[in-house]
């Protein structure tokens, strides 16, 4: 049995980790959080230079033709480094969305530029304050003209283009829209975690290129695919938060001894470890289903997503608790992970949405165990 990543994939993961350590990714997160820049362009360029944006793009479209498994290990490291870059929007979502489509012209034009990091994409899907179901898409497509508003689009003010879900009157289609167009208004938002920029996007008869008609099942699939990658990112962040808590507890003395020697603290860290291990193992299942394009993907993706969301929340909040008062100061890094945990939970649908998806998927397959 070989239910693990290959040596090459692990080696690649180590290279990404080394780069993010060297570039001091966590410190860069703070710089973006506190400053006016929308993302860390320098770090983004380093990731591009390493070829990471080209990972899943076939060679014929200018990529390096690796698979989703490689993307999973990259995602874990970006999560560990809480990297302030639009990678999830541009790679997990926009690139995968285009790869999934059968529009050959779009592939030829966009994929080489995405691979080379010349352009950045995102997925504009949310409307109002709740994650939409099929009947909840109000952004409309009249022919190829897109109108309406998408809210809190991740990297919406960074991206060059967005894949947009829009109602055609008959069903929901997926369109590619150039965000630099005059008919598109972008409004940067003040958010909970400014290390990743978000924007409201208003389309006023903007020109869309049809990626897919009657696309709701494709949207579900894209969300499932990206959920596995988001889950790896969450697991990376959760592990970093758990390790921070452990390291701090081992060096912090109270009542005459390291607080790590108190069972109250040890059990807290052990609980973090348990939720992390469950999440990691479910992520492996998700990675397997994703890379094999398995019919189990909806179940596997939701399982990975739900348990990774839980793990990152638990590890990031108990990391603050372990640090005591200092953990709740602006100066300490704990809150950067706490914010990122919350942000990743909100992107691509909340915990309630994914738990519901999971049970729906189990009801359909009727063979949950």
């Amino acid at each position, binding site marked *: *049995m*070989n*239910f*693990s*990543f*290959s040596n090459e994939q692990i080696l690649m993961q180590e290279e990404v980790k080394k780069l993010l350590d060297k570039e001091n990714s966590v410190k860069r997160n703070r710089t973006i959080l506190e400053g006016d820049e929308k993302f860390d362009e320098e770090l983004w360029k380093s990731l591009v230079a390493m070829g990471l944006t080209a990972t899943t793009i076939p060679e014929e479209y200018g990529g390096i033709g690796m698979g989703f*498994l490689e993307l999973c290990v990259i995602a874990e490291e970006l999560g560990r480094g809480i990297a302030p870059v639009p990678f999830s929007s541009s790679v997990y979502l926009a690139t995968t969305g285009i790869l999934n489509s059968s529009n050959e012209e779009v592939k030829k034009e966009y994929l080489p530029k995405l691979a080379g990091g010349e352009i950045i994409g995102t997925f504009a899907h949310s409307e109002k304050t709740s994650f939409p179901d099929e009947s909840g898409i109000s952004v409309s497509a009249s022919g190829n003209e897109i109108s309406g508003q998408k809210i809190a689009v991740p990297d919406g003010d960074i991206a060059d283009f967005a894949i947009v879900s829009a109602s055609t009157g008959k069903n929901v289609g997926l369109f590619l829209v150039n965000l630099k167009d005059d008919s598109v208004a972008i409004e940067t938002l003040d958010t909970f975690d400014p290390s990743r920029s978000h924007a409201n996007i208003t389309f006023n008869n903007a020109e869309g290129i049809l990626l897919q008609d009657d696309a709701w099942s494709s949207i579900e699939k894209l969300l499932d695919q990206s959920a596995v990658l988001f889950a790896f990112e969450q697991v990376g962040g959760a592990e970093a938060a758990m390790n921070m808590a*452990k390291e701090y*507890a*081992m060096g912090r003395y109270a009542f005459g*001894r*390291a607080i*790590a*020697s*108190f*069972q109250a*603290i*040890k*059990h807290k*860290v*052990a*609980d973090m*470890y*348990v939720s992390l*291990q*469950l*999440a990691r*193992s*479910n992520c*492996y*299942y998700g*990675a*397997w289903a994703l*890379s094999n394009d398995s019919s189990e993907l909806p179940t596997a993706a*939701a*399982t990975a997503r*739900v*348990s990774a969301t*839980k793990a990152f929340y638990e590890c990031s909040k108990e990391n603050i608790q372990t640090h005591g008062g200092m953990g709740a100061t602006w100066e300490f890094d704990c809150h950067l992970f706490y914010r990122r945990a919350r942000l990743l939970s909100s992107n691509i649908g909340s915990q*309630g949405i*994914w*738990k*519901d998806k*999971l*049970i729906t998927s*189990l*009801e359909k397959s009727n063979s*949950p*165990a």
Partner: protein
Amino acid sequence: MDFNDTKNEAQFREEASTWLSNNAEKKQHARDIYKAAGIPGDGSALNDAKNWQEKLYEAGWACLHWPKDYGGRDASPMERVIWSQEMSKYKVPGGYFEIGQGMAGPVLMTYATEEQKQRYLPPMAKGEEVWCQLFSEPGAGSDLAGIKTKAELDGDTWTINGQKVWTSGAQFSDYGILVTRSDFSAPKHKGLTYFFLDMKSPGIEIRPIKQITGGSGFNEVYFTDVKIPDSQRLGEVGDGWKVSLTTLMNERLAVGDASGVDFQEIFDLAKEQDFNGDQAIKNGSVREKLADWYCEQSGLKYTKMRNISALSQGSTPGPEASITKIVSANKLQDIANFGMDLMDSGSIVRDDDTSALFQGSLLGAPLIRIAGGTDEVLKNIIAEQVLGMPQDVRVDKNVPFNEIPTGTKN
């Protein structure tokens, strides 16, 4: 990344599966159990289990990882996993030999003389002789090194006085492994001595413990001037703690998933039960709980797959496996409780298989969270042995044992 066997593994699986299909009845459902099997406590299925174990032994499928000389097969850890995966598909009796083969066997293998190994290991593998483990005492459970059962040496013979508790299967065991205190003035961990003994020895009295389930899977065992020859000592005098650790390490590997209701049962129940005029499973709060339990079950399943995969690639499993019991025992308890909630006021009536199953699981769960390492001990193991956090400050180290308070004081 895949779930496939290597060529050798596939060949071994084929061999195991062929033998099993010729010798046992396949389960229709994953939860089918061997018909005649009762709980090990009542001994009702002991003969069936002995016959089956003998059949395994004769065909070379008993204690696979043991050396052939002692009744095993010299199998690799991965082959052992494959065998247990295949055997779990069949309805076979069991539950009587795990303590002997899983805990006493490895200790004898390490500490007994060659002659003793030849004498005791093959009958243990064959199921001919049943073994029990005499460790816990009323005043020493998680703090096992606090035991007080006294061992005194006179010439070549030890005399044992004291009481053990939580001994599974003592009433039908032929032999037992026993840890005692031979020196009360030495520090706690230094005064222990380890033996094996004949459970039919004069002076042993066995009393069943009635548990909250109503069943009696465990016993109290009283020792009054029980004699053990010094030749049945395992390890040096005073080295009993070290020998015990060998046993406990194997106990952790032997304790796996908690048995009782799991995700499938609560999923089915949620479809059957009504809640506010609709199927319970349509309710958001129900779905949320189901999703959490599914994630735990799936997380454990794929953690096991990762561990097996590591085994297949040649590494040794470590204390990481401790998470299985913590998660599955708590999940069992919560699912049982929620299932009874779903059955509403009728849940307390024991009128069908479903209510009996959920009630039994709710009553059985507390002991599962305690047996074989409590949740709290397992969390210490994770923190100290997996994550490298320091041990708690000990007030009982390097103090003569007879000066340390033990047991219950009020």
